[in-house]
């Protein structure tokens, strides 16, 4: 059953050095506050899994938390490249980063296979694609019924998944709505799941019956962090801070400027600071 804990303890109790961790969110509902807490606690040798490792993985990689990244699109969505990730891949700074690169279709299928308890995902993909030649985890199987050759990739099974969601009820059931992305699969594929939420409500009696609700017993720990996905957004609460994504491109371009920004905006801050960052974005949502 889900426990409610302050974010600092939630991260300390669920993340360990060397873990395979997924901080998922497909542009929407990115668990930024949880990622910043992990950075403050200084974890090392993490294998970071995510379809779209945007700003938070750029920050974690730049701060030296990651040994390996498993991903399918390493960009700042709509803006350009991830400059800290690039520095790690191109120059081994702050230290070399192993990468396992896939397509979105492969990662989505791999999470689903993880949630379904399967060892691998099978799909029609990677035909003619160069990734199949550089990633040994991209293989193929032959359909026993039609003889069609299909792509196979191993299931994603994180030690721990972090997601951000709209709200929890008092029992710890969690609502995710809007662009639901891959979060349900990422939670159900993981050994442990930590969810940050905007708020806690008494019950979910007024919800539409088909909404995406993760029952309390699928979630290990819940932390209430209003604004916890900034500069990403929470549908119904606050809008995406597109200007911050544009600004990140300049901050991350320079090692010193990046360090200073991280010191001031992450290391010296707490989870409580997120609420103030979304105030000007609330009425736009």
């Amino acid at each position, binding site marked *: 059953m889900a426990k409610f804990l302050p974010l600092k303890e939630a991260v300390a109790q669920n993340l360990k050095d060397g873990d395979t961790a997924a901080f998922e969110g497909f542009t929407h509902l990115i668990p930024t506050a949880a990622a910043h807490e992990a950075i403050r606690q200084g974890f090392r040798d993490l294998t970071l899994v995510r379809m779209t490792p945007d700003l938070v993985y750029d920050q974690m990689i730049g701060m030296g938390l990651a040994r390996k990244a498993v991903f399918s699109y390493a960009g700042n969505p*709509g803006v350009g490249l*991830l400059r800290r990730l690039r520095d790690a891949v191109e120059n081994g700074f702050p230290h070399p980063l192993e990468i396992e690169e896939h397509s979105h279709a492969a990662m989505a299928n791999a999470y689903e296979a993880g949630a379904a308890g399967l060892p691998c995902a099978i799909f*029609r993909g990677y035909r003619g694609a160069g990734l199949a030649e550089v990633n040994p985890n991209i293989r193929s199987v032959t359909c026993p019924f039609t003889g069609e050759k299909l792509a196979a990739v191993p299931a994603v099974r994180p030690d721990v998944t972090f997601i951000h969601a709209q709200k929890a009820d008092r029992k710890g059931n969690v609502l995710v709505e809007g662009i639901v992305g891959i979060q349900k699969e990422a939670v159900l594929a993981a050994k442990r799941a930590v969810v940050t939420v905007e708020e806690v409500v008494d019950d979910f009696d007024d919800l539409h019956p088909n909404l995406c609700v993760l029952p309390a017993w699928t979630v290990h720990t819940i932390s209430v962090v209003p604004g916890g996905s900034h500069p990403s957004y929470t549908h119904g609460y606050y809008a995406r801070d597109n200007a911050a994504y544009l600004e990140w491109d300049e901050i991350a371009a320079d090692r010193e400027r990046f360090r200073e920004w991280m010191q001031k905006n992450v290391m010296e801050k707490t989870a409580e600071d997120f609420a103030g960052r979304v105030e000007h974005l609330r009425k736009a949502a």
Partner: protein
Amino acid sequence: MSTFTPNEMMTIAASRALTNDDVCFVGIGAPSAACNVARLTHAPDITLIYESGTIGTAPEVLPLSIGDGELCETAVTTVPVPEMFRYWLQGGRITIGFLGAAQLDRFGNINTTVIGDYFHPKTRLPGGGGAPEIATSSHQVYITMAQSKRGMVEKIDFFTSFGHGEGGDHRKRLGIDTAGPTLLITDLAIWKPDAVTKEFTVVSLHPGMTREKVQETCGWTVKFAERLEETPAPTELELTTLRDLQARTKASHEGTVKRAA
């Protein structure tokens, strides 16, 4: 007729290729602008799909990312990402995959992964995202990009998304039964693959453009169709629609900057 830029011509020429009946998987950037101009002019019922799971979306402003809230709020429905790729793309329901490219070769193969060697890249680009499967599962693929010798090259550094491979029947030989790239729209011209070799061939020059300009900004020796047409200039409606859309977009993306009190 008012004046227009080559980029505006590119976006508008690309928008004209889309129809009301299309179900279009939209890449971010130039494809997104073209798809929404089509929707706001001659194809109001076109179904636009972004890989974040938003189906039948009608954004008021162009999204900065494929997952902006605007896309979900205006969509007919929003589905989980695995469903997007399994049922809708792999299931064969997408008529047009609309892609941009960092590097492109004459057979419509696209690289958005690395410049240089994969394991020791000179420049690490974002990678493929949804494109490898969009390129093979959509019924056909349209590509749009501004011409440059760096972008349109003899040999791409990495096959992120497969086009026509080495040309001819290469797709068929790999068991790919979709048409692949059937249209390339640049800021200078409209290109279509040769029926046999599948090499992109210029079929129409945009107003004011010449064969020489097309060749100067392309890294391979360009083939031109025997009967070369001129792309009709943008209409007032097309230009106004595009410019209004871009002005709304600019205001919206900058509007979230926190002002000092």
